[in-house]
């Protein structure tokens, strides 16, 4: 059981972190303006930036 578990975390640790950040971002702006909005920009900005970065990474 152990090796499988470790491979689960190896693969999903970062995606899970991004998922939690996105969820926090989606929720934060529902709670208020100003600081809450900025929090949501960070939370949703992380997946957006990583995605765009992956897309435009130099070949080779």
């Amino acid at each position, binding site marked *: 059981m152990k090796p499988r578990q470790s491979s689960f975390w190896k693969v999903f640790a970062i995606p899970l972190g991004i998922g939690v950040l*996105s969820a926090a971002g989606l929720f934060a702006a529902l709670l208020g303006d100003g600081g809450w909005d900025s929090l949501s920009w960070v939370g949703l900005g992380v997946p957006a930036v990583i995605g765009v970065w*992956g897309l435009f990474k130099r070949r080779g």
Partner: protein
Amino acid sequence: MSEGWKMKSKTIRRWSFIHTWTSLICTVFLLLLALTGLPLVFHHEIDHLLGNEPQLAHMPADTPQLNLEQLVAKAQAHRPGEAMQYLAWDEDDANGVIAIMAATAGTEPNSSHTFMLDARTGDAVEMPSANGGFTLFLLRLHVDMFAGLPGKLLLAFMGILFVVAIISGTVLYLPFMRRLKFATVRQDKSTRLRWLDLHNLLGVVTLTWALVVGVTGVISACADLIIAAWREDSLSAMIEPYKYAPPLSQRAPASELLTIAAKAAPGMQPDFIAFPGTRFSSEHHYAVFMKGSTHLTSHLLTPVLIDASTLAVTAIAERPWYMDAMGMSQPLHFGDYGGMPMKILWAVLDVLTIIVLGSGVYLWIVRRKT
């Protein structure tokens, strides 16, 4: 290979089958939704640029407002012979009252006419963006593909397939990425591998956002059913005593509705008023929909039912959970609750989703050829 590994590869094949077919079936529709949704994120800005947003006259800040019945009279003079369906308050301009009228109170929403009243003068200002034009055309494509309820339900079903595709894709992410570091994009092996890696990367980073927008889209697509359930469930019990009442002959003036509703639901703000005979009220009632005064609860609406001939409060409706779910789905689907930066992020994540959809189709075609 051990027995356990064989089971594993069978499981992978099963998930792969689910992922392939749920995605392929929904992809065309999801592309339509993502492509029309992209400009809709900015519909406010687009309507403004096109000059389709109403603009009220400049007047001194302390100019008094007309009362609601005076506004109703002005609206009826503007569109004689039509019935008032709804009055709502504009979010941007405190003097803007949005009026929705149609041939009869029960007329379906797409045949209604929406315009704005200046609350100070009662002057009608047309709202071209609410009745036609580019963004409304996109919205209809996005909401029901001009096919009414069957269109909405088809898109809701496609949304469910999309959610299943996301979940199965996440399960498959594990075997594909077992030997790879996060965000690996193999550039030099083959075009197929590069796009497989990008599909995995973009898919997994947009996962949460796409799930939330997908699920809230499905909920919004079921709005007609949700409203029908509310009428069936909640509203019909409240108006039970009116079951055999004669039809409403004389509508009492609307002037004091907000005062009455504020007294019945203290600490809440009016969102819109449904006039008697619409699908948000009964034949014998005004329904003043009150929203909470905090940021979060401003999306949750509590209707106050007011007898349309005596102006007595009949009931303050409980909010069934599905109405709350529908209320919360709207901001979470539109992305309009965190200013312009959020809209831009919404657009970026939408484009990334389009790339995930496109690369998914590409990977399927390439695999078929080999």
